[in-house]
């Protein structure tokens, strides 16, 4: 697959504030990449620089290997769907969709053909004469997408496309985006703060925080092998559990000691390089534990505080050491009585992070 978009040390400063801090990444043709992060992390600024609404302080943007950093907005052949749709309210749906073609001075007959095609593609075929004031939020969203797709952009960029929709519409629109993704084979860049959207739509996810690219990897790896405690806590619901403690040895068995509360550590590869006495955070994804009988091999014990059954699964909250941890386990595995619960983490998904920097100590299968 060819590289469609490449960001090289892209940087944006506003005075002393660094909004985007030397972000480098590549997006392959036909791939959907999600820019994920909390608000204010620099993802929208990155997006605006890609389309040209903002100029980078330094760094470069390549589309098909050509630098577009100095190309003015509107000449980069990229399409942006705005978060608030930015539909022209004084025009009909048809006029909105055809606007980009009209600016490009496409002939009327060709224009009508294109508009009809796109309108039926986004499901607005029967609403072309309507004014935006008569449309629902999801229809406005379709107008915004149609208006962008009609110009046949090299890259389709979506800025928080579902955040203004209600829950039901959000699901529908997510399926719709998935269909557009499959049928157009567009290269899509999708900005979101919603991890579910990123995980369900994107092939690859770039997680940003405070202007810094935290991790850029496949959706699977970003979820299962977070490179920092930030990525681990930002993805997943409930988020990854972090337990801070000191690595110790007892015979052949190594374990994490948090003021006397103990988690045995599996003898897998990441751990072998960590010396005794080092302060670390153990990261365990909420759904990567098994409930076992007390005293089982490799198990640790926690005091059960609460159980929230959610149909086939239950969220259990337990006290371990000085903090609480949350896990998702099959409802059938939930202990009948309160008291202590014994848990064994999945050895290959257990992660170790530096206690201070939050950086993952040894890379797992993700790299």
């Amino acid at each position, binding site marked *: 697959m060819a590289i469609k978009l490449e960001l090289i040390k892209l940087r944006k400063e506003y005075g002393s504030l660094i909004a985007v801090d030397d972000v480098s990444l590549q997006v392959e043709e036909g791939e959907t990449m999600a820019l994920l992060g909390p608000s204010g992390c620099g993802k929208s600024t990155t997006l605006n620089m890609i*389309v040209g*609404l903002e100029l980078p302080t330094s760094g470069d943007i390549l589309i098909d290997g050509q630098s577009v950093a100095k190309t003015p*907005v*509107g*000449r980069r052949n*990229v*399409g*942006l769907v*705005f*978060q*608030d749709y*930015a*539909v*022209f*309210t*004084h025009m009909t749906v048809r006029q909105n969709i055809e*606007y*980009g073609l009209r*600016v*490009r001075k496409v002939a009327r007959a060709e224009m009508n053909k294109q508009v009809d095609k796109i309108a039926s593609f986004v499901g607005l075929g029967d609403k072309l004469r309507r004014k935006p*004031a008569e449309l629902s939020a999801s229809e406005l969203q379709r107008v*915004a997408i149609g*208006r*962008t797709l009609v*110009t046949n952009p090299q890259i389709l960029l979506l800025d928080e496309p579902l955040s203004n929709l209600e829950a039901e519409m959000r699901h529908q629109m997510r399926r719709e985006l998935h269909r557009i993704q499959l049928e157009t084979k567009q290269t899509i860049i999708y900005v979101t703060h919603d991890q579910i959207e990123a995980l369900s739509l994107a092939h690859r996810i770039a997680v940003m925080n405070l202007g810094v690219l935290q991790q850029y990897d496949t959706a699977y790896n970003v979820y299962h092998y977070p490179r920092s405690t930030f990525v681990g806590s930002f993805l997943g619901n409930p988020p990854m559990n972090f337990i801070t403690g000191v690595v110790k040895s007892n015979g052949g068995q190594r374990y994490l000691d948090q003021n006397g509360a103990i988690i045995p550590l599996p003898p897998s590869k990441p751990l072998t390089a960590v010396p005794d006495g080092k302060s670390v955070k153990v990261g365990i994804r909420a759904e990567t534990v098994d409930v076992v009988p007390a005293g089982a091999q490799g198990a640790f014990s926690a005091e059960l505080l609460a159980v929230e059954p959610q149909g086939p699964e239950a969220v259990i909250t337990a006290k371990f050491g000085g903090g609480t941890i949350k896990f998702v386990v099959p409802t059938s595995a939930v202990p009948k009585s309160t008291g202590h619960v014994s848990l064994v983490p999945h050895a290959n998904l257990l992660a170790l992070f530096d206690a201070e920097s939050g950086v993952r100590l040894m890379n797992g299968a993700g790299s």
Partner: protein
Amino acid sequence: MPPKKFTWYNGIGLTLALIFALFPVFWMVSTSFKPSNEWVKQPPVWISGNATVENYLTILWPSVLLEKRGGLTQYTEEGEQKVAETTGVGGAVGDILIKSAWQAIWGSIIISVFATALSIIVGLMAALSISRYRFGGNTTPFFILSGRMFPPIAIAIPFVVMFSDVGATDTYWGLILAYAAVTVPFSTWMLKSFIDDLPKEIEEAAMMDGLSRWMAHVKITIPLIKGGIIATTLFILILNWSEFLFALILTYTKVATIPVQLAKYFSATEGALYGVQAALATVSIVPLVIIGFFIQKHLVRGLTLGAIKR
């Protein structure tokens, strides 16, 4: 908001409010048709039994009135001018009677229209640059308003001095510039609020489609705030149309406006010529009423634009 049901008590309330608001207008129109002996009669004459158009003739076609009364204003073939021999309405004589109000009416139209256009164009550019490009930071928008922070007479005196120096007194262009300068703060701030309410993404979307920044403003921003521009235009037009102080001190004989002309209908023997003034005032509101009628749809939309968030 669903329309509320019309009830008898809000009907009465509305009627009272209407009577209160429209009574001066009624009195003005009524007086404009009264003969001079009924203008200040006690008890007041509500609607004259002896309605006359003489007040209107005095301001619009004084020669017709004079001829009707036996006085002559016509020029003979020799170029000799005969003097009006009878007094006109309310004992008005001389200049007042012979000179119609047409000069003032045309003066008001020319000055108000051009000054309003200038004010809106300058105000729109200023509003765009302040709202979208933060031109002048946080302070410039307030400096623009500073001219409105003094009583008008305080800035009127410097105006007279400056205008005398450059020969702008008693000219149309001088008064047009003065009116534009005085109303630009209003147009800037009103238009700025309309632009502020419009998300800038909508212009960015147009730019994504290939329009330049300037064309995005022309093709997208301006059409979208059309209602606001129309409402602002009418507001500025009314300000200019009814302005008195600057017109009084910056004009002498060559240029006049309706408000100044109104004050001139004053007789040495009879005091204010209320009927004639009422007639000119009635004439002067006609254009505004007609314009208001045609743009009322935009007016309501324009004045409430800021309150409606989509």
